[in-house]
């Protein structure tokens, strides 16, 4: 089975912060993106795969497919950085057996009805609902955009919402 070096929710999926900071920081040699949206956009998927730095392998799965791989062999080998694009996808994967115990929230996008709670991370009511649901499943959730941030616990974050 693979070791999960980091599981992160980041609306930009693979981008500068992830490649320059988190990949090295977490000592991961693989990135797995779990996103149904990305699977519907093969061109974008190829852009991410092309962006793989030397020594890192990138796999993109839909939620169902990713959970199948998890159930079969816990993603096989290596140190894996797992990326979800939004909380809904993370919850869907959890309910399909990807019972991750620790999750980093790195960015959830923007929009008119969203409130900034830490750095550039925003939440809406729906996100808060999902976060509470995951916390009830004893998932440790922390908010951190880059390694230099002090990780913020969910309980602290919810006070700011």
């Amino acid at each position, binding site marked *: 089975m693979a070791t999960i070096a980091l599981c992160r929710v980041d609306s930009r999926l693979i981008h500068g912060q992830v490649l320059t900071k988190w990949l090295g920081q977490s000592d991961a040699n693989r990135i797995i993106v779990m996103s149904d949206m990305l699977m519907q956009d093969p061109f974008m998927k190829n*852009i991410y795969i092309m*962006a*793989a730095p030397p020594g890192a392998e990138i796999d993109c799965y839909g939620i169902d497919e990713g959970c199948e791989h998890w159930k079969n062999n816990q993603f096989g080998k290596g140190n894996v950085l797992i990326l979800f694009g939004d909380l809904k996808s993370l919850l869907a994967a959890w309910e399909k057996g990807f019972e991750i115990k620790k999750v980093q929230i790195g960015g959830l996008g*923007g929009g008119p009805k969203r409130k900034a709670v830490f750095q550039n991370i925003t939440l809406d009511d729906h996100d808060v609902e999902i976060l509470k649901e995951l916390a009830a499943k004893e998932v440790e959730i922390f908010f951190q955009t880059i390694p230099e941030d002090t990780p913020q616990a969910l309980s602290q974050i919810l006070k700011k919402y």
Partner: protein
Amino acid sequence: MGSPKAEILILTHGGWGEKLIDSLKMIWGSTDRVSEIPLIAHYTFDDYFEKVKGKVAQMAEHSLIITDLFGGTTSNVSAKLSQDYNIQVISGLNAPMLLEAMMSIDTLDDPQTLQRILAVSQQGCKDIVGEIRASLKNSSVG
């Protein structure tokens, strides 16, 4: 009136490309057809995509996008736009790259131009102290 003129669009994290454009104005003069769209920290991928698309939709064919970081959102957004628009995209923005691109702005439709811009930008990266030492060593041997 001829065909619309090609442009250069710079995409950087935080907008440092704009400073670079200002600096190159000192060396090259006119930078009328060079512009910048900064990637601001709170933008989502879609926010930035829409902003860049708005500009790219108005640019002539063979216009050139230069991004700062391969694998970053600036590059990913440009790559996605290349699906729908006839544009060229290179990454690794530096001063020699932008200068060469500005000097070549009227021949961006020539495939060799892009190769030359990439070569010049890479040739601009040197281990300066190493180069000096090598040259001193060579001259003392000679």
